[in-house]
């Protein structure tokens, strides 16, 4: 029976492979211990065939979609001839094909009837990896030794036997040993689920049949991807973005993307981007490969499987030694977000020229994801938590307003924030506010998602706050005539005198007992000319205090009454809109880097006595 002639079994096996990847995902999410996996869902699960081709990846983290295979290939290469049934491999080395040091890969070779047929693989971001500061993403790390423990490809199970000594070595080098042990168990549980299901799938249909259909599934994604890419006009398109900082003192590092579309093949070339920075805000080879490809996965039908057939259509070039692909031993601790998010934005800016109906405006880049640590006053026991309750928003796309709490293009909103009550129950903090910030989003025919004001204080003495991120002084761009988001920022305020220390996207500060933390995250960039937004929607946005009356009038050209439930002034709106229509509109905005480290939003907020700290180290 030829595979091509049986589209029915094809559909059945395609769905089953997706269901297996999905079950691996649920197993990991539901049984993980730390919020970074269980809620932020900062992990991916995938199945590969014996030729290390990606066959199924379901609801994965975008930055892992086209990069997970790279580290798997390195693991297989390292152990060539020594891959045995019952082995489980581990690796986190960004210079051996991994994304960044915080991501730990666990890979299980699946044997069926004694023969290696598949790989069941998960990659999960750990809460800690033994860096010099208590975080797995340390913006100020200057090399691979400061950023944490390097795990080259190694076996943690050998022919079915756990290598307790190796696992002990790993856990001895990280903080929160018990929590991280739980997370490792959850990752191992996930790949074991994958193995069981793949073996029973082979039992049911026959191994050769399943392998043949796996092939057909790759061809299928190839056909569909090819067809979609051919609809994009051929040509060479350019886009530029800037990252705020290198994590130490470098500012406005440029990311240059040149996108060449030729038929069904795309080349994204980051040649011309700035040199690698002193801190950890550098790309790794793996993140560069994914960052260039992810925007195209957003342009295509979300139903097309992200397997080898799909992802092979995009080639990414990122010269070694640039901020996009740093040279050893530079730290790449922040690579999955900074510069990866800006690398995505640069592609979207470039493609706004080619296919404006497909692109998305700029989104938040992980600023306002503070990690707090301290100790319980009563017991002295250490506590630590990362908050996803005030993250920045998604950019708008054609006919679609952005979502709030998107966090970053790397996470793409696929994370969950912990309930405020749950946080107050588990940690000695009091959340004082969590609300939308008026006028935080980029204006447009579709508006960006709203930014959030999150403020909190410790109930148990001093606490530390560690953040990393980007996109504050260089805010999320507006596209196809839309405006940028505010960029936003964060500060620590003294209760008695109201003095504030503003802190850049990345930093490390101590918060005294008489102080509180406030983060104001950016809204997403807008899409399309704001003068084209439905005036009734603008009226409601004013009514709901998403935007101010001034913004409605000055940017959207919409005039409303001052009532609690305002009414639209049709005549004044029409007049205002024709007046504003005289102004020139940029295709993408901004087209230049920030004027200084603070950025526009912080500069406007600064009061007398306030200070701004760039990349502070505590």
């Amino acid at each position, binding site marked *: 029976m030829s595979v091509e002639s049986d*589209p*029915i079994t*094809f*559909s*059945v096996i*395609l*769905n*089953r492979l997706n*269901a297996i990847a999905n079950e691996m995902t*649920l*197993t990991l999410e*539901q*049984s993980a*211990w*730390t*919020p970074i996996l*269980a809620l932020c869902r900062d992990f991916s699960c995938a199945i590969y065939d014996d030729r290390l081709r990606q066959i199924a990846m379901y609801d994965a983290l*975008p930055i892992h979609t086209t990069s997970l295979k790279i580290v798997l290939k390195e693991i297989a290469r390292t152990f060539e001839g020594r891959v045995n049934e019952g082995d489980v491999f581990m690796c986190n080395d960004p210079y051996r094909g991994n994304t960044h040091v915080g991501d730990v890969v666990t890979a299980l070779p699946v044997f069926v009837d004694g023969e290696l047929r598949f790989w069941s693989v998960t990659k999960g971001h750990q809460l800690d990896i033994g860096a010099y500061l208590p975080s797995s993403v340390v913006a100020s790390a200057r090399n691979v030794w400061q950023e944490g423990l390097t795990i080259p490809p190694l076996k943690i199970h050998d022919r079915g036997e756990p290598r307790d000594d190796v696992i002990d070595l790993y856990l001895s080098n990280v903080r929160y040993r018990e929590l991280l042990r*739980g997370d490792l*168990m959850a990752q*191992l*549980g996930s790949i*074991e*689920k994958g193995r069981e299901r793949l073996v029973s799938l082979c039992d049911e249909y026959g191994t050769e049949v399943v392998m043949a259909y796996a092939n057909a599934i790759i061809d299928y994604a190839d056909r*569909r991807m090819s067809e979609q890419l051919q609809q994009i006009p051929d040509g060479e398109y350019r886009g530029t973005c800037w990252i705020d900082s290198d994590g130490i003192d470098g500012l406005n590092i440029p990311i240059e993307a040149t996108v060449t579309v030729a038929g069904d093949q795309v080349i994204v070339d980051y040649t011309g981007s700035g040199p690698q920075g002193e801190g950890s805000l550098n790309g790794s080879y793996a993140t560069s490969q994914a960052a260039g490809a992810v925007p195209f*996965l*957003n342009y295509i039908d*979300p139903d*097309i499987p*992200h397997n080898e057939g799909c992802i092979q259509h995009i080639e990414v070039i990122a010269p070694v030694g640039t901020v996009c692909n740093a040279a050893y031993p530079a730290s790449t601790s922040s690579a999955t977000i900074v510069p990866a998010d800006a690398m995505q934005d640069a592609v979207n800016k470039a493609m706004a020229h080619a296919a404006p109906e497909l692109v998305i405006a700029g989104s938040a880049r992980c600023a306002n994801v503070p990690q707090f640590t301290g100790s319980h006053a009563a017991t002295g026991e250490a506590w630590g938590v990362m908050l*996803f309750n005030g993250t920045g928003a*998604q950019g708008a*796309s*054609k006919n*679609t307003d*952005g*979502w*709030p*709490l998107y966090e970053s293009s790397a996470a793409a*909103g*696929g*994370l*969950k924030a912990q*309930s*405020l*009550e749950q946080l*107050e*129950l*588990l940690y000695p903090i*009091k959340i*004082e*506010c*969590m*609300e*939308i910030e008026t006028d935080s989003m980029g204006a447009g025919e579709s508006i960006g998602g709203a930014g959030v004001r999150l403020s909190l204080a410790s109930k148990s003495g001093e606490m530390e706050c560690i953040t990393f991120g980007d996109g504050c002084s260089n805010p999320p761009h507006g596209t196809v005539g839309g405006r940028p988001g505010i960029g936003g920022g964060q500060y620590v305020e003294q209760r008695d005198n109201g003095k504030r220390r503003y802190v850049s996207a990345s930093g490390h500060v101590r918060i005294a007992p008489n102080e509180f933390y406030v983060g104001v995250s950016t809204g997403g960039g807008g899409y399309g000319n704001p003068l084209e937004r439905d005036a009734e929607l603008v009226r*409601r946005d004013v009514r*709901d205090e*998403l935007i101010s009356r001034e913004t409605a009038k000055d940017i959207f050209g919409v005039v409303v009454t001052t009532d*609690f*439930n305002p009414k639209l002034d049709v005549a004044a709106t029409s007049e205002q809109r024709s007046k504003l229509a005289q102004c020139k509109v940029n295709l993408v905005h901004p087209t230049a880097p920030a004027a200084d480290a603070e950025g526009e939003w912080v500069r406007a907020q600064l009061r007398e006595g306030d200070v701004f700290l760039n990349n502070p180290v505590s």
Partner: protein
Amino acid sequence: MAFRIGIDIGGTFTDFTVVDDNGAVTLWKEDSTPEHPVQAIERGLAAVADSLNTGLAEFLQGVDLFVHGSTIATNAVIQRSGPRIGLLCTEGFRDIIHLRDGFKPERFNIHLRHPVEFVDRYLRLGVRERIDHEGAVTETLSEDDVRKAAGHFRDEDVAAVAIAFLWSIVNPDHERRAAEILAEELPGTKVILSSEVLPEIREWERTSASVLSAYILPGIDAYLRKLEALLEDAGFSRAPLIMQINGGCASVEEILRRPVFALASGPAAAPAAALHYARNIDATNMISVDMGGTSFDVCLIRDGRAGMSRTIQIEQQPIGVAGVEVHSVGAGGGSIAWIDSGGALRVGPRSAGAKPGPACYGLGGSEATVTDANVVLGYLEPEAFLGGRRALRRDLAERAVMEHVAEPLGVDLARAAAGIIEVVDAGMVDAIRAVSIERGIDPRGFMLVAGGGAGGLHAARLARKLGMKQLLVPQEAGTYCAFGMTVTDVRHDHSEPLHTLTSTAEPAAINALFDRLERQARQRLIDDGFSPEQITIERSVDARYPNQVHELTLAIESPPPYGHNELRAIEHSFHREHEQRFTYALTELPIECLHWRITAIGRMPIAAHDPRPLESDVDGQPASGRVGERDACVAGEGQISFAIHRAGELGPNAVIDGPAILQAPTTTVLLMRGDRLHVQADRSYLIDIGAN
């Protein structure tokens, strides 16, 4: 004669199921009257009384159980046809229902719209007040703020207000005081308190449950009062009961206190139906499936209890309360087959619905559906569909399958039709796997119970695929959930938070909590008219490893009082459940407990089974009801001869061997080779699934 009656209002029909105390079932379908839903009930009741040769008053005097399931609340939410409402919340937190849990599904779909809330932001008003997690007031309630908010609510003419403050679950004083002020300021406006609707930690779910409750309350209040008046006028002296999402029913007062329980309650009646049929054959582990026109709903029943979920959403809004876990996929008789851009055959989730329906209905549908494929293959007899009330056009079915599937794929008609069935079956198998195998539960020890008009055609194949050995198809398959309503119990769920580790827990505090919950719940059931011996109390706890994020809800089998031994038992059962679901357990750790729950059940008397002899017993031998045979197509085998049987002519204890097709009034049962069907005393069909 005494009756129990189940009334299920749907979009098209209002279904009546009446069971008398001999177990005889009367079914009636009345056209729904969406503008004035009680009209259909009035007409239907009169018609049912008429068909039982009695007057309406006399009939209603004989009704000792009246259970009503209504889509009125659900439709108000789905169609967003409810009134304008307000939300009073803690200042600084009015976006809790907008920000949700921060999760955006479909990461690669940048055109997905953000869900729209059921109360607009300008009517979500914060007031100064704060309570900490131990219940201490850290900022007193600003009564001025409440009065000011009330002024805005009055100006905007809101019909109901939800009050949801942070930590009201450990100290509801502020919510209660705010409600008093609203009662003064807005007399007549309905007010819902989050601490009453869902006294559980997690402000998003609690606020959402309160907002949805406020949103549906004015509508269902008016409706249920009208219903009560109608029934009283008509001579019904008891109180009607309302079907709930938790699989039981409750009094009107109870529903109006916690309206969210009335949402999405229809499919929640399925486990009651399955358990009713299973009672005679001593089955306690079942997977209930209901395959209708557009969806395939699966429920897992283990040890006689339906699986419950606390993460159910309706219109993307969480309802917070535990409901029967119904895993639903877009696979039904009307599901449309299509070829995607990569050349793969897909079925659903788009459905031809009831209008135009499958191509074979001849009502203008031209695309190929699952029902069309069943006609092409010969499984559905065109003349016998829905008991002969609808003739099916085989020619139209063939044309649809040919044009939309066979030609694009380059296969013949039979292969195309078999392919549609194979793909839709695979989707249903995956749905059953999702609630069983993927939860660490082996379905091979379970019985499949198949309801819904289309269930009987597919179920034997699904059971075989999953290695399940027995299948039960009720005779009332077509009105499966309406029937379930006549055999439900009254059920009240209550919970309280008490955050503790099993290693350091104070048993006295847990015992006091359960004592409090149980006394209140028993009193409610006694007020509903139950005697103490009819009341069953079940207990459970939300548990996790210390600092783990997600919880499992564990049943606590032994009754209180609890001591350290029982806490050890909770630990053991947690480790076991965790290992089963997630492949590992860390047995040296204690367990962290969050909410303690009770379910109070008022047991209804067990409905009798119809003992009347079936009609065609011949010489003491059960009649087989065999009326002939017909060729139908089986994938991989070609045309096979199937014996055709009619349900009306079947005798009790009759046995039918596959391959055979049994035509029953509301379903068709397809038996493959090796399958053997036994007609049960209650006229349901128990099928032993043959080996592969």
